[in-house]
């Protein structure tokens, strides 16, 4: 039993975090809002240089051979910076699914290209019907009744859908499954793809909550009313303390979910949904209390707070809304949790 990240994991996360804080500034984000496709090839290239697309690709195919537990703290940082790029769809979700069948030459080829930062894959799922960054994808990984399909961009029709968060570029995708596009009929691959999507959202929500906490403590430490910083008022302190409690106790729930997912724990779907609910609750509180302690300025377009609040509000419905995940946890709890033994907490992973 060791519930800590390795030094390697922490160091790499630190490197990525420093990069993101330097490069992915609110100024960059706002400038991309004004562009047609909303994405920066330069930024994508720099993320590739950091080795991020190679993370989930097996070493034999030029990747780093890492997985869900390694992605978790990185995805948190992506959330913290409100990264305007669906890199996680390509590099965590799609690569994770493709890596389940590396005997398939299509998968191997694509994984190699992903590792080299040369392929972008958009991912769609009935529970996440609008596909992010579909306009920039070479291929789309799409779920149909008969299995998971890998569809060339040339075979899909895209229709843009505007999101509250101008950084999110969403598309309704029209396509026809063909026998040739089918990657696998194994529903477990699709199920894991969905759980990865949900966990990726959860991780970003935790990072976003932390960002709002940081912005809010900074602002309330500076803003003066009644002759003192508003951060000295207990009501302001306690609102942010409440968020800190939710964020703190969401983190280990996400970590267990990532570990369970990486290790094929049969309870992984429940643990992922628990993570998604905990992160969603923390993030909703962060947004609500964050804007409240800012006051009127928090309601302006000008303040960067909006970037992070809107990402939270937008992601709350992505990869299964909170109600879906609540239902998965709820069914499990009511059916089985009453009879669980304390030793079962990490049982299946053992």
């Amino acid at each position, binding site marked *: 039993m060791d519930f800590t990240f390795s030094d390697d994991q922490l160091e790499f996360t630190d490197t990525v975090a420093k990069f993101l804080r330097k490069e992915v500034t609110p100024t960059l984000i706002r400038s991309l809002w004004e562009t047609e496709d909303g994405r920066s090839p330069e930024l994508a290239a720099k993320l590739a240089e950091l080795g991020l697309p190679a993370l989930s690709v097996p070493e034999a195919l030029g990747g780093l051979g890492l997985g869900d537990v390694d992605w978790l703290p990185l995805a948190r940082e992506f959330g913290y910076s409100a990264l305007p790029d669906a890199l996680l769809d390509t590099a965590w979700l799609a690569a994770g699914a493709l890596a389940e069948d590396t005997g398939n030459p299509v998968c191997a080829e694509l994984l190699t290209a992903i590792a080299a930062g040369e392929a972008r894959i958009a991912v769609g799922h009935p529970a996440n019907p609008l596909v992010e960054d579909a306009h920039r994808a070479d291929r789309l990984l799409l779920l149909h009744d008969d299995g998971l399909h890998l569809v060339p961009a040339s075979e899909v029709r895209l229709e843009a*859908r505007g*999101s509250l968060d101008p950084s999110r570029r969403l598309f309704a995708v029209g396509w026809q499954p063909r026998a040739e596009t089918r990657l696998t009929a194994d529903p477990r691959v699709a199920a894991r793809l969905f759980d990865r999507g949900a966990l990726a959202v959860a991780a970003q929500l935790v990072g976003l909550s932390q960002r709002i906490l940081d912005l809010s403590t900074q602002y309330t430490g500076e803003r003066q009313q009644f002759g003192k910083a508003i951060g000295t*008022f207990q*009501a302001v302190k306690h609102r942010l303390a409440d968020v800190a409690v939710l964020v703190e106790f969401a983190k280990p729930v996400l970590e267990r979910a990532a570990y369970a997912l990486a290790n094929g724990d049969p309870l992984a779907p429940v643990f992922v949904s628990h993570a998604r609910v905990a992160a969603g609750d923390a993030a909703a509180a962060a947004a*609500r209390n964050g804007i*409240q302690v800012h006051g009127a300025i928090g*309601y302006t*377009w000008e303040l960067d707070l909006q970037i992070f609040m809107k990402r939270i509000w937008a992601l709350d*419905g992505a990869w299964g809304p909170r109600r879906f995940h609540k239902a998965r946890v709820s069914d499990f709890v009511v059916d089985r949790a009453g009879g669980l033994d304390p030793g079962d907490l990490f049982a299946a992973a053992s």
Partner: protein
Amino acid sequence: MRLHFTEAQRAFRAEVRAWLEANVPAEPLEDFDTEAGFTQHRLWERTLSDGGWGMVTWPKAYGGRGCDLIEWLIFEEEYWRAGAPARVNQNGLFLLGPTLMEYGTEEQKRRFLPAMASGEEVWAQGWSEPGAGSDMAAIRCTAVRDGDHYVINGQKTWSTRARWADWLFGLFRSDPASSRHRGLTFLLVPLRSPGVTVRPIRQLNGLPGFAEIFFDDVRVPVDNRLADEGAGWQVAMATAGFERGLMLRSPARFQQTARRLVQLYNERRAEADMDPAIRDAVVRAWMGAEAYTLSTYATASRLIKGGHIGAEASLTKVFWSELDQRMHETAMAILGAEAELLPDGGGDESRSWLEGFLFAQAGPIYAGTNEIQRNIIAERLLGMPRA
């Protein structure tokens, strides 16, 4: 206690309903924080006023209809039920109007109220300044007496609707030696005056719903002063009471939201019931909107009998603003993946909930943050000691 509507009240409701059915535009107007939408809304105010519905509680001489507060509540219920346009002149009608009625001279009432009721003059408010938000007594904008004028200098901010409004009411420091609540004067300022610069501020939805206003030696006649020089704080507190209390956020608005939420829940029952907290929230939304409505009828009854509304308005402000926030959060939870979609990306239904959700975030902030309201409740209603 007699909790039913009289024959006359029911006839009044029928009359309002019939007029609205005949006159409310079939297509929703554009947002009144756009230039085109502002113009459309000003025209609608004119239509309302021509029908005699500009501000039903005012005396006929001032462009009103001489209704009592119960009729006002009935009017509002029908107005929201009909989906009629938002009131672009709400700052004037619901805040400055009652303040003028209490503190204005006869001349001021005749000068300002009819033009307000008709939408000819749209009003913005001028409370907050960069250093005076929750701490409103920290106002620094000056109004220096110069003969029969005040000369105004300084900056106001968060002035709702000021982008295209005609007039502004607000507080100015007329005694430069004064501090805090003393030495403030309540003035009515034409926004087209020389020396006024309006800089729009974009809100969360991208539209310029706020503005900053800069005053550079702006001359305002002394006749534009409400109540005595130096009595501004008292007048402003009365206005704030109207804002938090009965007028600005009439219960009909929240009843309508609650009804729509129940409908949304029923339409999407299968998804909504995945999370039992959603049904609970829907039922609580209805209970909350009912409670607010009943409370308002009780307050109106007290006022009609000569009662007065004081710090209780703070209870009201906390209640409706947090109710509204919870109702919209619940709608977003039901809508799931659709919740984030803009008009060009989803149905009308999610569009209006999303707009309402964004606006609901401002509720616990404007009209005095709920932190300030809770302080007022504790100190003035419960008698707890000040810090």
